Structure formats: structure tokens, C-alpha cells
């Protein structure tokens, strides 16, 4: 049995989500017989890790620091194996613009988009380009910060008049934002779990939001009963397999490791699938999708956590670099 440093909390806006994930992970690790040292990540992280001298770190952090590769860089530096992907994959998943550019280059469908930095507006007159973009992408548009999880800062612009407010919202969360064509259809997620046989796509989960909710937002994600889930999703023939293949391609393209969750939209009018984003460190709360998908595949929560840990331990810090 291993000594596991459970990294949680931190400064990110998704701190609460992280604490919820970590609480479940801690219980599972203890049931599996591991010794858990839980660390609320702050300025003393390196000091606490050195004192704890863990065999492995379980990264149960979401948002800034935990999901953007910062903590992973540190863990590599001090030579502690950890769950989930390395820093480069984290960075590519955390920044949706980088993700989408990689997907486009690899020919994996993702909704058309344009990205802007604050500097583009402040110093380069990007506002003048907005009408052309609006025309090209058509309304409604999805406007979101390039980074940030849990749907924070994402808004729909239904008309041109909505765009400035939506941009302002997105810029509250990041200095880079993207405008994306809205795909009207079903919210699917495909979780990938690594194992001895390589990465495996788990059954597809469909999130069916409350009729009053505009879309699958932060509240809908983390409140029991706000959203219903279908797992395995009841989809037209062939769609499940297509979604799973697409998710695996995205996972490998971005260099993920251990596990990830790929969010996909199934467009109602065309039946086409589009990768929206890839979450390098998906949530592990009661309402999170990865545990539900594992459950549908017959993998209990404890077994899921055990497998994540085994995959991390099987990989040496040198192999990561």
C-alpha cells in the first residue's frame, strides 16, 4: 500500500469543487488501504510534500494551478509521481484555444471559432472585426474564457447587442476569450480511463439539463437533482462509437495520461459530433460525469481511484519528462 499525498483546494475559483472531489477520493483511498496525507495547496506546498515524502500524489485540484500544469511542473521537479497528465497536456487542455487549434490541425471536428486577447481589443482595434466574425459564425454565439472550468464565464450571445456584455464576462475570467459557433444539440461526455491495455473510452454520458436552465452551467453541474444524466446515453446507431473514437483521438492528440473527460456536442440538425473541450482533471464529485461513466462500465468508484493511482505509479517521473 502507498503513502498518497492528496492535493486539493488551492486558490482557484473551483476550490469548492476540488474539496468535494477530494473528500470522495480520500474515503476511497482509505478504503483501498492507502495512507493519505491531504494537502490544501498553498504557499507551503513544496515544504509539505517534502515533509510527507509520499510515494505518489493524487491531484484532485480543479481550475488554475491544478489543471493548468503548474502543480504538475512542481511535482516533476521534486520527482513525485502523480495522477493525471503532465504539464504540457494540462496546458493544452486548460487553454481551449490551444485545444481547438490542435483539434483543427488534426482534423477532429470542433465548432468554428475566433479567439481574442484583451490586448487585441485594447491596443489593436479588434472591436472592428466583431461584425465580420458575427456574420461568419452566426448567432447564437457562445462566448467563453479560453481557460476556466465548470462552465464559469460562459455566455450565449443571441444578438450582436449581447456580444459586448458577454465578452466582458468572459474577460473577467481570463485575458483571452473565444467566440464559438453554438452547436444546438445534446451534451455528451466521454471519459477516458488508462489501464494496462491502454486508454479506454467509457460509456457515453448525456447531461439533460433542467428545462429552466439555459445550458449545462455551473449550478447544473454540481447540484444533485439539477440535471439528469443518461448513462449509457440513448443515442442513434453508431453515434456512441463515433463519439468514443473521437474522444480517444482527442485524448491521444493532446497527450493526456491516466484519465480525462472529453465534452462533445451532438448537433441536432446534422447529427455531426464536435469536440468542445478536453478536461485533463475531470471532477470526481457525486454529480461528476467520469465516475458515472466508470460506474456504467462496471468500475466502482474505489476501483476507479485505484486504477488512477496504479497508472500514476506505473509511470516514473523520468518517463514523464
Amino acid at each position, binding site marked *: 500500500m502507498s503513502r498518497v499525498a492528496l492535493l486539493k483546494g488551492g486558490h482557484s475559483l473551483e476550490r469548492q469543487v476540488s474539496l468535494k472531489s477530494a473528500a470522495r477520493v480520500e474515503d476511497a483511498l482509505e478504503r483501498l488501504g492507502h495512507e493519505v496525507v491531504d494537502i490544501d495547496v498553498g504557499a507551503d506546498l513544496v515544504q509539505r510534500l517534502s515533509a510527507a515524502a509520499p510515494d505518489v500524489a493524487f491531484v484532485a485540484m480543479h481550475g488554475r494551478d491544478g489543471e493548468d500544469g503548474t502543480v504538475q511542473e512542481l511535482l516533476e521537479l521534486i520527482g513525485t509521481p502523480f495522477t493525471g497528465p503532465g504539464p504540457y497536456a494540462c496546458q493544452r487542455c486548460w487553454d481551449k484555444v490551444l485545444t481547438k487549434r490542435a483539434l483543427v490541425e488534426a482534423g477532429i471536428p470542433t465548432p468554428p471559432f475566433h479567439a481574442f486577447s484583451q490586448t487585441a481589443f485594447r491596443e489593436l482595434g479588434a*472591436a472592428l472585426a466583431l461584425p465580420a466574425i458575427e456574420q461568419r459564425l452566426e448567432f447564437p454565439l457562445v462566448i467563453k474564457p479560453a481557460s476556466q472550468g465548470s462552465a464559469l464565464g460562459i455566455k450565449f450571445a443571441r444578438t450582436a447587442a449581447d456580444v459586448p456584455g458577454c465578452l466582458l464576462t468572459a474577460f473577467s475570467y481570463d485575458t483571452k476569450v473565444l467566440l464559438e459557433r453554438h452547436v444546438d444539440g445534446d451534451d455528451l461526455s466521454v471519459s477516458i480511463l488508462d489501464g494496462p491495455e491502454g486508454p479506454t473510452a467509457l460509456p457515453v454520458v448525456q447531461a439533460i439539463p433542467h428545462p*429552466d436552465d439555459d445550458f449545462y452551467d455551473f449550478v447544473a453541474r454540481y447540484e*444533485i437533482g439539477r440535471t439528469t444524466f443518461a448513462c449509457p446515453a440513448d443515442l442513434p446507431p453508431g453515434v456512441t462509437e463515433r463519439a468514443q473514437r473521437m474522444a480517444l483521438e482527442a485524448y491521444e492528440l493532446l497527450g493526456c495520461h491516466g484519465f480525462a473527460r472529453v465534452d462533445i456536442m451532438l448537433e441536432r440538425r446534422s447529427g455531426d459530433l464536435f469536440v468542445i473541450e478536453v478536461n485533463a482533471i475531470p471532477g470526481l464529485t457525486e*454529480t461528476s460525469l467520469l465516475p458515472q461513466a466508470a460506474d*456504467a462500465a462496471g468500475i*466502482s468508484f474505489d476501483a*476507479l481511484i485505484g486504477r488512477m493511482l496504479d497508472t500514476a505509479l506505473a509511470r516514473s517521473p523520468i518517463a514523464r519528462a
Partner: protein
Amino acid sequence: MKIEDDQPDSGQSGGPAGPPQRTAAHELERYGALFARRTQVMRSSAMRDLMAVTARPEVISLSGGLPDTTTFPPESFAGLMARLAHQESAAALQYGPTEGHLAVRECVVEVMAAEGMRIEADDALMTTGGQQVIDLVCKTLIDPGDVIIAEAPTYPGAVPTFCSYEADVVQIDMDADGMRIDVLERTLDTLAAEGRAPKFIYTIPSFHNPAGVTMSLERRRRLVQIAAERELLVLEDNPYGMLRFEGEPHPTLYSLDDASFVIYLGTFSKILAPGIRVGWTVAPRPVMEKMNLGKQGVDLCSSSLTQKFVSTYFADGRWRDYVTSLSAIYRDRRDVMLEALAEHFPAEATWTRPEGGLFLWATLPDYIDTTDLLARALRDNVAFVPGRAAYMDGRGGSEMRLNFSGVGDQEIREGIRRIGKVIQEQVELYSTITGAGPTGPAARRPQPAVSEPVVEARVVPLRQRRAGGR
């Protein structure tokens, strides 16, 4: 790579030997099916999760409703506890009567007398903080779908209580003189035409939380009159009445009423300490009896220990000096905040100028969403309460509550400077995006009024009723 079959394989958990585990999906379904209908309107929010970050030590929090408990001398605290332990140890550690210990109810008589109200000790029901009064009033009066009238904005802490009793809340706009009574009357007429009468009107007449305004005497009189004419109850929440910095105190609604229609809510939280959780209510006798029964079901009685702490403290006779010293501290902090706002907030922002209490309310240009602004402000380690927390009908998006009692002068200055900076950043960015001319920081003027109403009052039916139940 491999693709997992869609068919659940419930026979193989994959885990080690041990007790069978219930799976995530089953857990969700199981609990979801057991939850009461009212839990569907108990809402979490992105805001609440953002607020969790504000507890970090590096964050200057102007978001709490915290009185400054550092001003209560630790040696006094130690002395009081020692005296209590020597004199009343067994009783302090014991259950007490549901209505509260007589000695603390006599303290209530004293506090209410200081605000011009005459009651007897028997008239008070002690509660676990003032918050419990709001809960007990709802428990006593509200069936799902009943109407509660509240101010717009209202106390954010009352919102989850109203939600959990499945009330339909109608919020009435305020101005510098508190609740707009003309709007209230029109709203009552509209509701009456629909065959709906509110069960009670919830108001914080003095140094409103969050708006920072105080109801004028004329409006107080009229409100009490309306309650009597229409036979409606008024819940007067008065935690801050004694924390007046300037101007003449107004009589409470309770003192203007002939004890028929006003339910009074008092608390020791702001005049002594919130950690003791001692509040009280004085209500028309039949209402009080039902509230007493309700309280028995909730917690049998409030803490004997902290009630006795209060009566031991009051026996010294210096409680008013402490309130006076608190008021002086808060007045200075309010002034520091007003100065900082004038210096750092942009010309488009307005804010209230409270004559007492703990809060002021700022209104920003309508294109700024203060929930998003909080996310941005947290990157600069400063926090406030976004306005939406104080509305149940989606308003308040560009408003914010700022607390000036909980932190010292320097932090107030620095906190307002940081918030001002992120607002200015958003104002400039918006101007750039829309092509409007940028606006610089303002030459100053405080604004006495709460935001201009777009809609005077709205009845917002609860979500799940609109959706036809569960």
C-alpha cells in the same frame, strides 16, 4: 486503445474484497428520489463557490457581515466565563426552557427599552440567532406558494429561508428613504386583484442589509397603518438599530404598532457578538405560541451557556458603552470607505451613504455583472457580495454589497482601491469593445439613492411550480 462496451457489468466492481459498494449513479438516484420537493428550490450558486475563496487569508474580504469581535477585550471574556463557571455552572450546562432563561429575557427588555420599546420579559422568545426568527416565522405562516413581501434588495441570508418554505417572494423597490410604500400599496392591490394576500412583509427598516438605507418616519407610520388596515403581519428585522452614527433615531415599527401586527426580531449578534448565537422575537401572542412550538421541534431550546453569558455580561451594566464604542469604530470605517469610493470608483458608479449599521450598497454601470466582477476581483485578492444574492427575481446584476465593519481602515482603503481598479478596467474594456469613448475616474459625489428601478415589483413563481412539479 479500447472502447468500453456500453452494457453495464454490475457484477464486477473491480474493487478489492469488502462490503458491497453502492455506485455513483445509484447513489444519485437513491438520494434524489428521497429528497423533499422543497430541496429543489434550495439553490446552490456559482457565487457561493466563489465566496469560498474569500476565506483565504490573503483575500481582503468586504463581503462578510461580520461585526468586529476583536474589539471585545479577551480579559473581559475570560472574566465573564470564569464568573459564569463559578456561579451557574450546572444551569449553564443544562437544557433550558424553550422560551429562554428569564435573566436573558430581562436583558432583552433592557435593550428594547433603549430603542423606545416597552415589553415585559414574558413577551420575548429567545432564539438561536436572529436567523432562527426568520425561519420560525416562515414555519408558522408559510405554506408553499404563499406570498412574502420583501425589499429589493433584501437580506441575502433570508433568501434560502424563503426558498426552503417554497414562498413566492415579491420584492419592493427602495430609495434613500427605504421601502417605497407607494409601490407596496400598488403591489398589494395587484395581488389582491389576483386573490392573493401576502402572509407577511419582511423589512429591515434601520440601516438596511444590504442597501444601507433607513426607512423614514413617515413611511414607518404608513407601513404600520397598512398592516393594520389589511391585517398583514410585518416582520421587523432590527439587528443594527443601535449602531447609529449620526442623525436622530426613528421609532421602530414595533413601537408604532399596538402589538397587533408587528413581529419584532432582535439579536445580540451586532451589539455583543454573533458567535454566541442569541437572538429573540416579540410577536402577537397567538403567533408567538406557534413559533414556540416550532422552536421545540427545531432545537428544544437555545444554548443555556450563551444565554447565561449574555445575562452575566449585562449584569456589569456596561453593555451600552460597548455599543457606543462599536458605533464609533464603524462610523470611522464607513467614512474611510466613503472616501476610498470617491477616490477609486468610476464616475458611473453610485453608492448609498448609511447613517449606521455595517453595509453600503453600490450600483455600477448596467453592463458590468458583479458576479463576474467578483471572479476577476478575487484574482486581485479582494471580495464583496454580488448584488444577485439579494434578489430572488434575477435583478441586482450590476450591484454589490460592501461591508465596512469587519476589517480595519487600511484594508478598507486597499480593498476599495483594488475593486475600483477592476471596475475601471471593465469600464475601459467595454468602451473599447463598443467603440464608445473611455471614461475616466470620477470627480466625486456620493449618491443617496438605491438604483433606479426598472421594474417596481415582480411576482416570481417558483421554478418547479412553473415547471409543473417534480
